[in-house]
């Protein structure tokens, strides 16, 4: 154990060394550049959103981006790697970083589940270039230098999808470099001799081992369209499937629409997507990220004695399942229990698909179908059904 502590101490020193070196000389310059690299591409995004004003900025942003990428990012990672190799203890160092990540995630509450807030803003901290852009736009009457829909994302106006795509083929940002995949998911996002996976801000990055460039990225929040994007008008008539409508009713300031396995929350005035809720049937689940709207414990009553939050795992219900969630990253590490999206309720007609007797074996003696009463199991309860009218007459028993 003592030896272990020592090793960890050395690893910790290895980390602090490059940090300490930061302000001085070439290393310092490189580091500054690294920050710009990410920000410059934000500038590009601003150009996209902001129309004419932004056109000029886009040119500038692009140019800077290329420059800093060459001088900065590369150098910084090179330093980082050297440190690792000379001291060994790579895994301890990663472990420590992950820990720090976790602390940050906790402190930020559920911000990890949102796109581009935490880490991105950190990168901005000491960034003069970006502030300059902000000031200029502000003087022209835009909110935070962005069109209204994009301002609140605090990512330099870029719609999140575009921002992430701009990272393809680039160095993985330092903030994500230590975003190790939770252990429970490492089988799913398995490292290979040629590449490894890193997690950051709702995306899983596949990174080439040779050059640390991002080969591909997977959006873990169900894919499809992303918050801050315009919802395509041809889907505006695509309503939420009937069995989910009670969960997602339209209100005067929020619409819900369905496309390709996801429910989208849409601002009716701007048409912008402000929430993406993937449905289980659309492949929501293992290895993906639980949206920030699921921050509170919400497991149905009948399952609460079984699925409660612990230090290692949270349990959350979303239509279709109870998920086990990694508290630090909001990634779904397992599907604890499948539930039907359309539960039975007393007074309702028995839905299609329940004509077959399905009571668990242990309860069959007590609840056998007769000509006067049928019994059906659904989501932890046994219900009694009137065979003639096919109406659910009562909830007979809770099983779990």
């Amino acid at each position, binding site marked *: 154990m003592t030896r272990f502590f020592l090793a960890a101490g050395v690893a910790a020193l290895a980390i602090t060394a490059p940090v300490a070196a930061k302000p001085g000389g070439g290393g310092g310059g490189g580091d500054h550049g690294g920050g710009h690299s990410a920000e410059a591409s934000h500038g590009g995004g601003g150009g996209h959103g902001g129309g004419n004003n932004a056109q000029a900025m886009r040119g500038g942003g692009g140019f800077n981006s290329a420059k800093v990428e060459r001088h900065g990012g590369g150098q910084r990672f090179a330093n980082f790697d050297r440190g690792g190799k000379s001291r060994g203890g790579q895994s301890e160092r990663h472990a420590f970083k992950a820990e720090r990540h976790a602390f940050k995630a906790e402190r930020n509450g559920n911000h990890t589940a949102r796109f581009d807030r935490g880490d991105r803003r950190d990168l901005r901290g000491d960034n003069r270039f970006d502030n300059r852009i902000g000031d200029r736009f502000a003087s022209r009457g835009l909110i935070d230098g962005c069109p209204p829909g994009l301002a609140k994302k605090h990512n330099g106006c870029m719609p999140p999808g575009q921002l992430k795509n701009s990272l393809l083929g680039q160095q993985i940002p330092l903030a994500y470099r230590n975003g190790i995949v939770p252990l429970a998911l490492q089988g799913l996002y398995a490292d290979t001799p040629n590449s490894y996976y890193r997690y950051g801000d709702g995306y899983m990055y596949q990174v080439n081992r040779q050059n640390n460039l991002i080969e591909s990225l997977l959006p873990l929040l169900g894919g499809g369209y992303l918050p801050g994007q315009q919802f395509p008008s041809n889907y505006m008539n695509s309503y939420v499937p009937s069995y989910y409508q009670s969960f997602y009713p339209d209100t005067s300031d929020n619409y819900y629409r369905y496309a390709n396995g996801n429910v989208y929350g849409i601002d009716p005035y701007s048409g912008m997507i402000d929430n993406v809720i993937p449905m289980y049937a659309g492949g929501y689940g293992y290895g993906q990220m639980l949206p920030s709207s699921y921050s509170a414990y919400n497991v149905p009553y009948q399952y609460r004695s079984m699925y409660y939050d612990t230090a290692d795992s949270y349990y959350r219900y979303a239509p279709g399942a109870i998920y086990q969630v990694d508290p630090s990253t909001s990634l779904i590490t397992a599907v604890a229990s499948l539930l039907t999206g359309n539960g039975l309720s007393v007074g309702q007609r028995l839905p299609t698909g329940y004509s*077959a007797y399905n009571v*668990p074996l242990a309860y069959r003696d007590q609840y056998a179908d007769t000509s006067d009463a049928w019994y059906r199991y659904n989501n932890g309860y046994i219900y009694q059904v009137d065979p003639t009218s096919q109406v659910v007459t009562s909830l007979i028993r809770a099983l779990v």
Partner: protein
Amino acid sequence: MTKFVVPLAIAAAALALGACDQGKKASEPGAAQTGEAKNAAGEKTIAGGLDQNSRFFTAAKSAGLDATLAGPGPYTVLAPDDAAFAKLPKATTDAWAKPESRAQLTGILTYHILPGTILADDIGKAIDNGKGKAVLATMGGGTLTATREGGKIVLTDSAGGKAIVTGPDEKRSNGVVHTIDAVLMPAKA
């Protein structure tokens, strides 16, 4: 500086220890289940009863559903045999191993899991009551249609694909497994 390093060392050590713990847990099949849930599921679960090397169970594992089938359920699982998977194009099944195809794979697998314990006899009775056919709800949200052909139960998916129940009624503590001879495909979302 020294003061700064000490807490770091402890944090790193604590995390490394925690990681060992987690590693152990992740390798257990019922890792998603709490003690209470395991008791409710009983000793011989669906997850434990399936052939751990079968292609169905391997697929369930890569969709994170192996842990689900070790939970209390109860579920009725229609498990296609290995030959059923072999009938599919190799490109399709190979793609399921990739994280980006997991959405599709999960949709297909949950189409093979039904709520509650439905024995073959129960499906048979429902077919009789339903004048030759019974519609069965699945966990994935879609439905299957059951009919009887030559004394065996046949399940038809939304695209018209058919699977015969070849090994009915393998009873488990948290449900029942029926072996079928084809992979059923849900309607595309």
